Every structure is written in C-alpha cells, then in structure tokens.
C-alpha cells in the first residue's frame, strides 16, 4: 500500500478521513438512516398520543374524522406518491449521468411539494372558517362527542409537523437544483441527491400513515 499510489487514485470529492468514495457514500447513507430513526421517534410521540386518546375517546375520534375530506386526503397522498416517483427518477438519471433530466425531476418534485403545501393551506383555512382551531381556541359545535378538540389539536400538530418536513424538503430540492446546475453531481458522486431522496421518501411514508389515522377512521 504505497501512500502516493492511494493519494493519486482519490477523487476530488472524497474527504480526507474516508478510505474511498464507496466508504464515504455508505457512511453518509448510514448517517441518514440513523437520522430517520430519530424522525420515526419524533413523529412517534404524536402517533403515541393519537393512539392513547383514540382508545380513550373512540367515538369522538370517529365522528371528528368524518368531518375531514377523504378525497382531499387521498389527493394529497397521490400527490406525495408522484413526488416520490419523480425523486426516484432524479436519482435514476443522475446515476446515468443525465444532469438535465435530474434537474427536471428535482424541479417537478419541488412543484409536487408546493402543491401539497397549497392543498394543506386550503384545508386548514377551510377548517378554521368552521371555528376548528387547535387547543383552547376550538369553537366548532358540530360534533356531539366530548373532547373533539383533542382530535383536531392532534390533526393540526401531525399535519403541521409533516408540513414543516415537506417545506424543508422543498428547500433541499432547491439546494440540489442549484448544485446540479453548477455541475457538482455526476454518476460518480451524487450522495446529497441519494440521501435527500431517503428523507423525501420518509416524509411520504409518514403521510401514508396519517391518511388512514386522520381521514379514514370513521
């Protein structure tokens, strides 16, 4: 193992503390997976509250849930699935070295994210126009069961925390597009796109569970 020999083989993007590009890639991915586990537990606190309060007030939860628009929830889900598809395609194209298509796919992913946020803003405003506010501000009289505000507080918290994740994801898409435009990525080095993809699919994953829990339980 002549040191000079190793040094000349190194690609410019490989940082000095990694053995080679492959180890750097695997390390970044493992780091992202560990972060996603902390995210599971971050959302887990809200999922846990949901389960506890649902077992305490099952009828209120069912009645309150029927107030939410199932079709809108389903449309949001399809939107996020499409964004996951375009994200996967972005990774496919950068692996093939096609930067132009990568840019386009990242852009479409960003737009799907924006559509999701827009749809949610519309839904929240619609709920609020009925007096459905989180916590003590709750003023909706249309649900006969007690503690309906607990359901809607959880609804705002869960969709809100998820929405913040979508916004962060959109920021990451914009950042990736800038870097792709500057030619920083290639078939050999695309680690940021890969791990942002993991994050984006994870956000989709959370929504897949929010759909039945919030919209379909009645």
């Amino acid at each position, binding site marked *: 193992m002549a040191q000079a020999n190793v040094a000349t083989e190194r690609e410019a993007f490989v940082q000095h503390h990694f053995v080679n*590009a492959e180890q750097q890639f695997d390390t970044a991915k493992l780091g992202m997976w560990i972060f996603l586990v902390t995210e599971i537990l971050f959302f887990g606190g809200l999922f846990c509250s949901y389960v506890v309060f649902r077992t305490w007030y099952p009828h209120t939860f069912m009645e309150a849930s029927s107030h939410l628009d199932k079709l809108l929830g389903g449309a949001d*889900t399809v939107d996020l699935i499409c964004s996951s598809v375009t994200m*996967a395609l972005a990774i496919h194209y950068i692996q093939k070295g096609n930067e132009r298509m990568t840019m386009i796919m990242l852009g479409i992913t960003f737009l799907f994210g924006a559509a999701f946020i827009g749809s949610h803003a519309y839904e929240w405003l619609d709920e609020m126009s009925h007096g459905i506010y989180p916590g003590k501000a709750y003023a909706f009289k249309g649900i006969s069961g007690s503690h309906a505000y607990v359901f809607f507080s959880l609804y705002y918290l869960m969709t809100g925390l998820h929405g913040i994740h979508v916004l962060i994801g959109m920021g990451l898409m914009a950042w990736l597009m800038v870097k792709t435009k500057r030619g920083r990525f290639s078939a050999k080095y695309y680690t940021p796109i890969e791990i942002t993809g993991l994050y984006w699919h994870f956000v*989709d994953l959370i929504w*897949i569970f929010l759909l039945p829990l919030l919209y379909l339980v009645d």
Partner: protein
Amino acid sequence: MSEQHHHIVPIKMILTVGAILVFLTILTVFIGYLHLPNPYNVIAGIGIAVIKASLVVMFFMNLYWERRRFNIMVFLAGIVFLTVFVGITLLDTLHRAHITPGF
C-alpha cells in the same frame, strides 16, 4: 475497490411501484367511504398503509437492494423503538380506572 456498484433502479420499476401505490391509495379511500364497523376500518386502513410503507421502504428507499444489511437493521430498530414506546404507554393508559389528566 473504489469502483461503484450502486444498483440503478429501472424506470419501469419506479413507475410500476408508483402505480401500485396510487392504486392502493384509491382502494384505501374507497374502503374509507364504505364505513366498515369499528375494528375493521382501522385494520383495513393500517393494513394497506403498512403494505404501501413496505413498498416505499423497499423500492424507493432501496432497502430491497441494499448491500449493507446494517441499514435495514437500523430501520427495523426504529420500528422496534416505536413499538416499545407505544406499547408500554398503552399498558398504562388502557388500564386506568380514571382517565387522567382530566382533559
């Protein structure tokens, strides 16, 4: 050693998985409109969500082709943590004579 052997997922595969996910979403919303009696609606909703989540984790997050099994273990450990979290909390909250706090 430094050559890359990353699995490139074919476009056809990505679109097929996407189409299945959209189909399952339509199915779960449709089942939602059927208003099944209480335990079954939750079982159907969560069951379909678990299938969809598995598809996303395996084929979009690439755990199906993962050379490093360690990433799969990390993910499953997260699920175990969540199960412990919710399960042990329920051991308490399901068996209370009076719901506290009183809100």
